[in-house]
């Protein structure tokens, strides 16, 4: 079913697609009908460049367990990065 579960956030970074690397400044995170993965619903991660609204966006869809696994590993990496003693830089 359509879940209407979606939220978005501004980000600073880049994403790579068939076109090469491009800036992305917005991400949406949702859980809804899958487009390609052979399951009913997936965690959906969409990355956009708001300056190019008609460009293909970068999309990833994962089953729920994979979403949890990704989240856990992401938190581990972020914790490690923030405690690494290295300077935290923000992209311009």
């Amino acid at each position, binding site marked *: *079913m*359509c879940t209407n579960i*979606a939220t978005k956030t501004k980000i600073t970074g880049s994403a790579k697609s068939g076109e090469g690397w491009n800036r992305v400044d917005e991400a*949406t995170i949702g859980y*809804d009908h899958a*487009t390609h993965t052979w*399951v009913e619903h997936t965690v959906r991660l*969409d990355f956009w460049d708001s300056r190019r609204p008609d460009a*293909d966006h970068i999309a990833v869809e994962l089953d729920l367990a994979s979403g949890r696994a990704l989240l856990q590993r992401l938190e581990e990496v972020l914790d490690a990065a923030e405690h690494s003693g290295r300077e935290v830089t923000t992209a311009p």
Partner: protein
Amino acid sequence: MTFWNSFDTAGSDGMTAAVIKIKGANGDEIHAYTARPEGRGPFPGIVLVHHMPGWDELYREFTRRFAQHGYNTICPDLHCRAGHGKPDDVSAKVRADGGVADAQVVDDLVAGAKWLRAQPTSTGKVGVIGTCSAGRHAMVAAAKTKDWSAVADLWGGGVVMEAKDLNPKRPVAPIDMTKDVSAPVLGLFGNDDQSPTPAQVDQHEAELKRHGKTYEFYRYDGAGHGFFYYNRPSFRAEQAADGWEKVFAFFAKHLS
């Protein structure tokens, strides 16, 4: 009568199918995919409401399928205002923005009905059909305007809504508009569906009965949500084949 494979092989069976532009809600110019049988007709019309995954290939095929069966058909691009690109890119943007507003959808669909009635081959009768979120939109349209001679809701989740799920884009639950539904209703549902659940379908049916509405509900064992979608794991061949017969029988009854 069986509708599948019922054409005469001697016929030329042509159709004109193309994307056009119509004036939708707020006077916005939006795209619509259309398919019209060749010949003088006259032909009844169908407005096809596309689902949340987008104004996509499945819906283009459905549009042509209805034309194949003798209906002038239009499928407005409800996501047009989000821009253009591949259907899943456009729908991802719309999803991120919380979907499209019910009021806007209704006005876009009415614009489609107006285009159908303006066709020289039109009988003047128009039905509306949608699957999933579009089944819900079809029910909203059926309550909000009197443009329809038949409405088909295929597994529309969100006809029954809790108060916490209402928002400015979806301010009223469609079930609460049932008294204003102005056309016979066809409902197709899978009994394994989680939105709508069988209990929610029961509620929907009870409300239609309470208000004395003409309706036909068909509920399929072994099927969940989206069982017509042959490109997805939800596809259920036997149930979909029967479902299509129900759709064509319903429109033949109410749009002739």
